[in-house]
């Protein structure tokens, strides 16, 4: 049994933040869940995926976030409690349905979990998605601990049903990936079916309908604002004259700072747990009792700006500051030491923290960037493309493990903005320059948002080669299935789509299927695409070895070794491939037989045929 199905109310468990959200959803009677995976949100749907195999919960990995939200909207319209999870940039993809779903509303409670990623631990930007609450008019809740992640998820479902609006639960990486004690509550039964009541003059958003719906949204927004005033996590503690306001993970930093600085009796502290709509009256009351205010919030000065506006409306002229105090900026994460120092600075206290050790005498340390795994098929495909096209082609790339092709010695990533941009930006590159263009996209990303760009490329007669790196899974985020997955091997019932058929269906005439571990044949196929006057697609098929191992699809192969009688130390193997199974020992290449999976790519690259399978 999945640990989150533990039916022992009152029991305390150490849960990951994302597990706490999943547990909260189950305690709220979650019946339907969808997502597209994305760090730091991925462990929420990972729980649902496994739980759906043991219970009546419906769960799907949707093609992308827009699809996930729309699938969820249909279920919520039927009255089922629905959760849709995504990372912050995923909400950009889902922004189109989000904005009008706010008009249409929901019948069953719907919680949209949005995971922001300050510092960009695994993201392309650190946009602040609190703006999406303001843009859409939807309520937003921001928990501060694992316990609150569970409790607020339940509260979010109730609020959603009460207002008939989706509610956004916003987290940041530090909350998604923190483990803490969570007290379990009762699990609610799962409803398998609801019923849709037709009402086209509410649900079909033609202009005449939407004019009414916008009004309805504003009415609901008014109700949400009233609820925010009494929201338990919009909590004020202390009655000192120094005002501190914080949200999300920063609530911990601020509370710890107040205690560690010993200023509990001087401070009035406000946690903003329901951050949209803001509790304006409560904030006004808070401002009236203090001499000055410090706002502790990561990323954009969202609360700071609003609190200043609230003060202005109420004729309050006390200093209100946030960004610019101490180390507070729009960049990256805050940390406990930074917050403690900013609090001390702002309120004029003497403070000396523990000094970090002196780092000035540290030598230059070799980097340890993440690397493609030993036996990763992407490495072989990159090698073949470089052999066929040389170093000058432009390589738009995409989001997945293969983005690591950025690093030397592969160095084959030139442009990336978002999921799917490899294909569409190639259209622009190939039209606007005379340079050769070979772009890379993974299989899951291809289904997510590569197809529309490919149709554009064919229709508008662009000329480039797209390499689909098909490793049979969504590898980067933890081996989730996608529409092209071998569902049988994963033990799930899904219909498998063929990338080749999709590509041909998009009108591509020049399609090459390659097995990248067959190095010469792969180079030949890619060579052939070079002369084609139009869009070529190379589908490079080989399973991610980690996924293959986990799903029992790994072929038995022997690891390889270097025959030093033949090796002339050209080092083509290590210099071109940089496989982590290889290292130098006394100026000779050695293959670690525990890491080598026997892909044999290095053996085909070696000009002396000096790399051979290990003898028994």
């Amino acid at each position, binding site marked *: 049994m999945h640990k989150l199905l533990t039916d022992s109310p009152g029991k305390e468990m150490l849960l990951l933040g994302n597990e706490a959200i999943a547990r909260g959803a189950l305690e709220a009677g979650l019946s339907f869940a969808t997502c597209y995976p994305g760090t730091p949100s991925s462990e929420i749907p990972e729980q649902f995926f496994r739980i759906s195999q043991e219970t009546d919960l419906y769960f799907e990995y949707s093609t992308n976030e827009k699809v996930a939200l729309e699938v969820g909207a249909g279920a919520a319209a039927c009255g089922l409690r629905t959760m849709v999870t995504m990372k912050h940039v995923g909400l950009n993809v889902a922004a189109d349905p989000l904005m009008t779903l706010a008009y249409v509303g929901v019948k069953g409670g719907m919680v949209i979990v949005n995971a922001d990623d300050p510092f960009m631990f695994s993201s392309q930007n650190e946009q602040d998605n609190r703006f999406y609450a303001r843009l859409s008019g939807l309520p937003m809740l921001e928990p501060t601990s694992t316990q609150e992640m569970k409790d607020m998820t339940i509260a979010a479902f109730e609020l959603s049903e009460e207002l008939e609006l989706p509610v956004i639960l916003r987290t940041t990486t530090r909350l998604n*990936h923190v483990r803490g004690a969570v007290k379990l509550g009762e699990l609610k039964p799962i409803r398998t079916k609801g019923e849709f009541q037709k009402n086209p003059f509410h649900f079909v958003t033609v202009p005449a309908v939407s004019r009414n719906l916008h009004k309805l949204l504003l009415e609901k927004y008014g109700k949400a604002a009233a609820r925010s005033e009494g929201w338990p996590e919009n909590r004020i503690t202390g009655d000192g004259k120094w005002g501190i306001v914080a949200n999300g993970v920063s609530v911990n930093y601020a509370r710890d700072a107040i205690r560690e600085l010993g200023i509990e009796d001087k401070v009035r502290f406000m946690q903003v747990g329901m951050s949209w709509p803001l509790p304006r009256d409560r904030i006004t009351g808070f401002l009236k009792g203090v001499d000055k205010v410090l706002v502790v919030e990561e990323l954009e000065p969202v609360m700071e700006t609003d609190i200043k506006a609230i003060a202005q409306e109420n004729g309050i002229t006390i200093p209100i500051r946030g960004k610019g105090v101490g180390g507070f900026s729009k960049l990256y994460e805050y940390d406990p030491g930074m917050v403690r120092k900013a609090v001390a600075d702002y309120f004029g206290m003497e403070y000396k923290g523990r000094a970090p050790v002196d780092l000035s005498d540290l030598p230059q340390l070799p980097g340890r960037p993440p690397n493609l795994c030993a036996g990763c098929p992407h490495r072989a495909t990159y090698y073949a493309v470089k052999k066929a096209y040389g170093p000058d082609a432009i390589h738009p790339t995409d989001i997945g493990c293969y983005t690591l092709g950025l690093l030397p010695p592969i160095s084959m990533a030139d442009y990336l903005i978002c999921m799917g941009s490899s294909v569409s930006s190639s259209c622009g590159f190939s039209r606007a320059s005379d340079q050769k263009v070979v772009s890379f996209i993974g299989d899951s990303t291809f289904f997510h948002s590569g197809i529309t760009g490919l149709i554009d490329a064919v229709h508008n007669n662009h000329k480039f080669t797209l390499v689909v790196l098909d490793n049979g899974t969504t590898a980067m985020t933890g081996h989730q299935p996608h529409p092209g997955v071998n569902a049988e091997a994963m033990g799930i019932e899904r219909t498998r789509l063929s990338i080749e058929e999709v590509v041909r269906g998009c009108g591509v005439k020049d399609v090459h299927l390659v097995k990248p571990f067959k190095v010469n044949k792969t180079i030949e196929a890619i060579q052939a695409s070079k002369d084609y006057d139009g869009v070529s697609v190379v589908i490079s098929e080989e399973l991610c070895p980690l996924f293959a191992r986990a799903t029992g699809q790994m072929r038995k192969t022997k690891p390889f070794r270097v025959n030093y009688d033949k090796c002339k130390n050209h080092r083509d193997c290590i210099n071109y491939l940089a496989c982590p199974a290889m290292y130098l020992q006394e100026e000779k290449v050695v293959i670690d037989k525990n890491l080598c999976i026997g892909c044999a790519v290095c053996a085909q690259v070696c000009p002396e045929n000096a790399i051979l399978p290990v003898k028994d």
Partner: protein
Amino acid sequence: MDTKRCVFVGVGGQGNLLASRLLGEAALAAGIPAVVSEIHGMAQRGGVVESAVLMGDVTSPIVSNGEADVLVGFEPLETLRTIGKCSRESLVITNLQPLPPFTVSVGQGTYPPVDEMMDLISGKVSRVIALRGNDLAEEAGNPLSLNMVMLGALIGSGALAVTADGMKETISTSTKKAFLDSNLKAFDLGMKSAG
């Protein structure tokens, strides 16, 4: 209640996330409030993996530079790279056995000699426990039990309120049965080398 901040650093695959989770579970079982923070994502791809366990009167999940009471490094180069988390008062527990990054293999840098790195570390903090962790894991019968060796050394250092019995109880209930004997043996070997 005393506040203790521990930082764990290692290389993907060395198992430091499991070690920090087990320490958090053992603290919770002993009635010590604890938060554990992890950074996922690149762990399986040979990158640096950092986690933290904070115990006692603290709810912030991360440790600022200079504020670690204990730094547990699973690999000597990574211990040195993370030394900025420490102050003069910190305890450093480190494995001495290197796992060179591939940048070194392809000549983009040189791996500093371990004794030089250890001299640097020893000169900066109040106390260092250094051990040949991989050898001890081998001796315990499972090369993958390095994380248990390091946990053993951490508990053996006496820096935390979590007891050896409590930690072993958590290891017994929360790790795979097939590895239980070697895990407990590795833990004991780690404890002994810290004593």
